[in-house]
């Protein structure tokens, strides 16, 4: 553990989400699409939340979306977030439709965060084994 900073627990990929986490290492944000009814979903799961079909494909999401909801934590909840606060945790409504939960907003002051704010994915290469999808305010073209 770095001095004064708590180690956040990293993902332990399982049989349902390992494809997602592997793709993160390639900087690809995957969502799932039902090949029967077309419903797009997040987070990774074996079957469609609309029709329960297991006929699934992965789609590369654009990485664009907007903030659906968020919270900025100032409390460290015991030792767990020491060195990480303030931290903004949020749900992103992806341009493709599904809600992505949860992720972090970076490069934005807590007082500037708003629901509806356009955001884009940015990759946090934590280690050779782990890359986390985070988001920042979308750059204007």
């Amino acid at each position, binding site marked *: 553990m770095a001095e004064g900073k708590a180690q956040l627990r990293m993902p332990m990929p399982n049989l349902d*989400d390992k494809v997602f986490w592997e793709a993160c290492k390639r900087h690809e944000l995957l969502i799932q699409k039902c090949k029967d009814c077309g419903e797009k979903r997040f987070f990774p799961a074996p079957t469609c939340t609309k029709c329960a079909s297991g006929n699934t494909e992965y789609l590369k999401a654009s990485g664009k979306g907007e903030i*659906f909801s968020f919270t900025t*934590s100032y409390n460290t909840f015991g030792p*767990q977030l020491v060195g990480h606060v303030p931290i903004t945790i949020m*749900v992103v409504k992806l341009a493709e439709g599904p809600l992505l939960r949860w992720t972090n907003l970076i490069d934005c002051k807590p007082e500037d965060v708003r629901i509806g704010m356009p955001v884009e994915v940015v990759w946090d290469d934590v280690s050779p084994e782990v890359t986390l999808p985070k988001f920042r305010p979308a750059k204007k073209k």
Partner: protein
Amino acid sequence: MPSIKDKCAIVGVGNTKYVRGSGVSTLSLSIECSKKALADSGLQPKDIDGLLTFNLGESLSMSDLARSLAIPQVNYQFDITGGGNNGSGVVITAAAAIEMGLATNVLCVHAINRFSGVRYGAAGYDNFAAPFGRVAAAQMSAMYAQRHMHDYGTTVEQFGAIATTFRKHAMPNEDALMRTPLTMEEYLKSRMVTTPYRLYDCCLETDGGVAIIVSSAERARSMKKKPVYIMAGAANTQGPGLDLGGDTPELYTTYAAKYVAPRLFATAGLTPKDIDFAQIYDAFVIYVICQLEGYGFCRQGEGGPFVEGGKRITYGGELPLNTSGGHLSEGYVRGFNLIAEAVRQLRGECGVRQLKDVEIGLTTSAPNPGGALILRR
């Protein structure tokens, strides 16, 4: 269609004091509140043949409890996985077991050392939570609150009305953890935990236990205390595709209440207008607002104005809520203390905080999946 309506009754309730630092095990807390519930009901340990509890990472062995209470034979026992959304469901599950002849008198217990034992955020694992610092339920709930404020203009003063009103309710309650007054000014000055939640928007990390004994309505009529009948109940209902994390926008504004309410009121043959008081699951303030909407006490988005100023939700108001202080000020025993308070209100045992002429009360468990009970005297 078969119905649970009025088939069973709550015949005994007991609780420990709600404290920070019980100094004893959850088994000891369970024994203490169970003995009090037994005394309250007039039943002996040998009369209990069903045991139920629920847990999130702090499992209690039903066998240990049965042994510690010297219960000679148990015919029905489960330790159900789940948190605050389970409380009402556990009681209705006991009633269902009794109605089907699986057990006669079921002791439902919940005890936690939430302050001195496993604290918030320390249980469970989710690959999409901890790596992003989403470690506590408060953060998840805060995102619901943020969205409600955005969609409906709900305000921090409305949150504060809940926190300060429930504190007022806890003050005369000798078992409550927080008994000092809380003003709106103090509320607004309290530290930010996770936006938009201030300290007093969050329930209390509590050590304590509550036991509830359920029996058949017929047997209840010859027991020591006036029966409190279970008119209707739901045991962990949810809608399509919903999970606690909020993968569908709906969760942010209605929770399970939307799905529980129609079945609940239909079973009881009642409407929200018939409810004299409610003990609403209040782990966080937004849960109160969303459930007032979801159970039909006001329209969607009007939960904030409903609680504003606190007058409608206190003694003498249109719908008194959480009359013992609730999870925000009495203590947090995952909804079980709310049920105990409803029983005591219906029996008329609440002393200075007793509501006048109450016949029917609602208790809820939330957010999702969720359950509820309608109780009557």
